[in-house]
């Protein structure tokens, strides 16, 4: 058997490819691009919620939000670690992000003007992320699948805390209910965009499915998310901003798919908060340079003057 045949057989049998195994160049490049995009999204995704840490409406909500943002840092690190097994370094990936040569989920390029937006981002944004991520924990690349299994286990709390915060708002005053509805109006479409372009506009889907990186197409997962989420919105007494949304007899939903023009503009880095998110990330990295330099200097000194026991 050739290396290619062995690889095909492992993927066909639903087993995992490990970092030291032979793999096609396209498989490696696709994984690096996808895992790095995913890691960057976790890191950029800390910004919209991090901005609310000092303004959370109660100590409990604040503790929950800190834990969630900390998880996102952790998820970014698991994923950078998984990508590093493919032969790219974390600093290379960060450089590519800072040079706008790597993407992140542009759903984070929308604003969070109210506390209800934090709730909506958790309920809808993390809800969409979970639907996207669960199949990835069964993907063909072992280090990515294992990192995703860990991420998914931690992520379900993210969605539930968002739903709970939403439930608290809709049980409140008229003003709080209106705030909740306005946030849902803002976050519904960005959440649907997290699944990526429609299948007929997604040129890489076929390769990714063949390689077992993706187990479902973007549209399949988007439908699944809508079917799960529409009843939750109904329970909360909130309206999803889609006039075509309608429950079919079999319990699935008819809905309008994403606006491709808006999606494409976002991909080009023209989302409303894209500039702010990127600048903030670059500044944070630059402002942390002295820490990295201090660590390097300390290590260099330790080499010259070994510590006396």
């Amino acid at each position, binding site marked *: 058997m050739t290396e290619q045949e062995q690889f095909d057989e492992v993927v066909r049998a639903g087993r995992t490819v490990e970092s030291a195994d032979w793999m096609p160049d396209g498989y490696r490049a696709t994984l690096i691009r996808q895992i790095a995009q995913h890691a960057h999204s976790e890191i950029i995704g800390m910004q919209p919620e991090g901005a609310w840490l000092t303004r959370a409406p109660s100590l409990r909500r604040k503790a929950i939000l800190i834990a969630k943002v900390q998880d996102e840092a952790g998820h970014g*690190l*698991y994923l950078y670690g998984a990508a590093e097994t493919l032969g790219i370094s974390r600093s290379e990936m960060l450089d590519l992000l800072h040079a706008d040569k790597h993407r992140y989920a542009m759903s984070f390029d929308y604003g969070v003007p109210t506390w209800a937006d934090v709730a909506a981002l958790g309920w809808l944004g993390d809800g969409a992320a979970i639907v996207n991520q669960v199949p990835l924990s069964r993907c063909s690349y072992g280090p990515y699948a294992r990192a995703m299994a860990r991420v998914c286990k931690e992520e379900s709390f993210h969605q539930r805390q968002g739903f709970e915060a939403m439930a608290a708002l809709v049980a409140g005053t008229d003003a709080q209910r209106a705030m909740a509805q306005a946030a849902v109006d803002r976050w519904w479409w960005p959440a649907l965009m997290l699944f990526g372009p429609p299948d007929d506009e997604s040129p890489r889907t076929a390769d990714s499915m063949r390689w077992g990186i993706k187990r479902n197409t973007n549209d399949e997962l988007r439908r699944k998310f809508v079917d799960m989420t529409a009843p939750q919105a109904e329970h909360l007494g909130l309206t999803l901003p889609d006039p075509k949304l309608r429950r079919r007899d079999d319990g699935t939903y008819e809905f309008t798919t994403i606006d491709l023009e808006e999606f494409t503009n976002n991909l080009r880095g023209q989302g409303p908060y894209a500039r702010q998110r990127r600048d903030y990330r670059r500044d944070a990295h630059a402002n942390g340079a002295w820490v990295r330099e201090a*660590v390097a200097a300390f290590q260099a000194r330790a080499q010259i003057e070994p510590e006396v026991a």
Partner: protein
Amino acid sequence: MSYVEPLWEVFLRADRGLSHVHVGSLHAPDPEVAVLSARDLYTRRSEGVSLWVVRSENIHTSDPGKRAQYFESAAEKPYRHARHYAVPEGLNL
């Protein structure tokens, strides 16, 4: 600035009596920081009771290209398993 914090592999013991299991990797300048970072990164939800960190460069693996050479010969030695041997009915052997 060419200094890169070295990579460490993290192993976690979930509970007393279990083995340490590989959970992932991280960058840290020295073993102390590696253990502290491993705690922050891999045990935020009481996942374990003990951590090991090992410099990634100190891990050496068998050649995946020689998997058959390494491991397949065991398949030809069924007599190493107890179930290879017939046990007369009624005996607790």
